[in-house]
C-alpha cells in the first residue's frame, strides 16, 4: 500500500478526512472533534460547520446502530468507512458499511421515499415520526435520514455493491452547501 499515492488520490478528490476501521462511540467523538476543528479553520459559515457535523454524527451513529442491531461480526464486516470531502462550495459526507442483503429493499425504498419530500413535507414527516410509538429496543428515533435530507437540500445519494450471498456494501452520501 503506497500511502503517498493514496494521499495523492485523496487530494485529487478533495478528501479532507477519511477513516476506515472498527467504529466505537469514542472514535465517533474524536473524529467529530477533529472535523469541527478542521472546518472551523476554513473560512466557512458556522451553520455549514454545524450541518456537516450533524450529517457526520447521524451517519456514523446510523452505521453503528445498524451494525449493533444486526449483530454484524466484528473484524472486516464490523467496520465502517467515513469520508469528508470538499468539492467547490460543497462539503460531501460519505459513509459506507456492510449490510445484510435482506435489508436492502427496505433501506433503499425508505431513502427513495425521503428524496421525494420537500422541506415542508420533511418537517411534517419528522414530526409525525417523533410522535409515533417506537418499536421496543429501538436504538434511534427513526428520523436521522430525514434530518440529513432536511439539512442537505440536495437529497440523499446511495449505492449498493454486492459482496456475497449474505452481505452487500452500502454507501450513503450527503452534500452540504458551504455558503
Amino acid at each position, binding site marked *: 500500500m503506497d500511502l503517498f499515492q493514496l494521499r495523492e488520490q485523496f487530494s485529487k478528490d478533495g478528501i479532507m478526512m477519511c477513516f476506515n476501521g472498527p467504529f466505537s462511540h469514542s472514535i465517533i467523538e474524536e473524529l467529530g472533534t477533529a472535523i469541527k476543528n478542521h472546518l472551523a479553520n476554513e473560512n466557512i459559515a458556522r451553520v455549514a460547520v454545524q450541518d456537516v457535523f450533524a450529517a457526520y454524527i*447521524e451517519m456514523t*451513529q446510523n452505521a453503528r446502530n445498524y451494525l449493533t442491531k444486526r449483530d454484524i461480526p466484528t473484524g472486516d464486516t464490523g467496520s465502517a468507512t467515513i469520508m469528508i470531502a470538499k468539492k467547490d462550495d460543497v462539503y460531501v459526507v460519505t459513509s459506507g458499511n456492510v449490510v445484510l442483503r435482506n435489508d436492502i429493499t427496505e433501506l433503499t425504498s425508505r431513502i427513495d421515499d425521503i428524496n421525494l419530500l420537500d422541506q415542508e413535507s420533511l418537517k411534517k414527516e419528522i414530526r409525525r415520526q417523533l410522535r409515533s410509538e*417506537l418499536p421496543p429496543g429501538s436504538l434511534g428515533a427513526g428520523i436521522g435520514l430525514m434530518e440529513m435530507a432536511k439539512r442537505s437540500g440536495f437529497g440523499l445519494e446511495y449505492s449498493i455493491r454486492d459482496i456475497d450471498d449474505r452481505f452487500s456494501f452500502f454507501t450513503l452520501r450527503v452534500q452540504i452547501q458551504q455558503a
Partner: protein
Amino acid sequence: MMRMLDIAQSQSTPRISYDPKEHVLTISGESYPENSFEFYAPVSIWFKEYLAAENRLRLDINVSYMNSSSTKCMLDLLDLLEEAHQKGITIDIVWRYDHDNPRSLDLAEEFKEEVTFPFSIITVEQ
C-alpha cells in the same frame, strides 16, 4: 425534600444540573450520546418524581447541538412538562443559543410549538 440531579458534562452528553434554591434545571453542552434513550432515562424518572411533588420548575437550556434521537428524548421531557403545566404546576423554559447558530433557533422554535407554557428564546454571545 431535596431532589438531586447533577450529571457532569462529557464530550457527547450535556451537563444536567438542578438548582434547588432557584428551582431551575440547567441543561448545557451538546447531546449526541451513544444511546440517547439510556442517557435520558434517569432524567425522565427525575422529572416524573419531581413533577409529582413540586409546584414549579424552570428549564434553562443551552444545547448547541442535539442528534436526532436526543430531540426525541427532549420532546418526551417537554411532554411531561406540558402535562404538569396543564395540572397547574408553574413551568417555563429559557432556551439560549448563539446568534450564529440558526439550527439551534430552528429547534427551539419547533419545540416551542409543542407546548403552551412560557418558552423564551434568547441569544447569548459565546
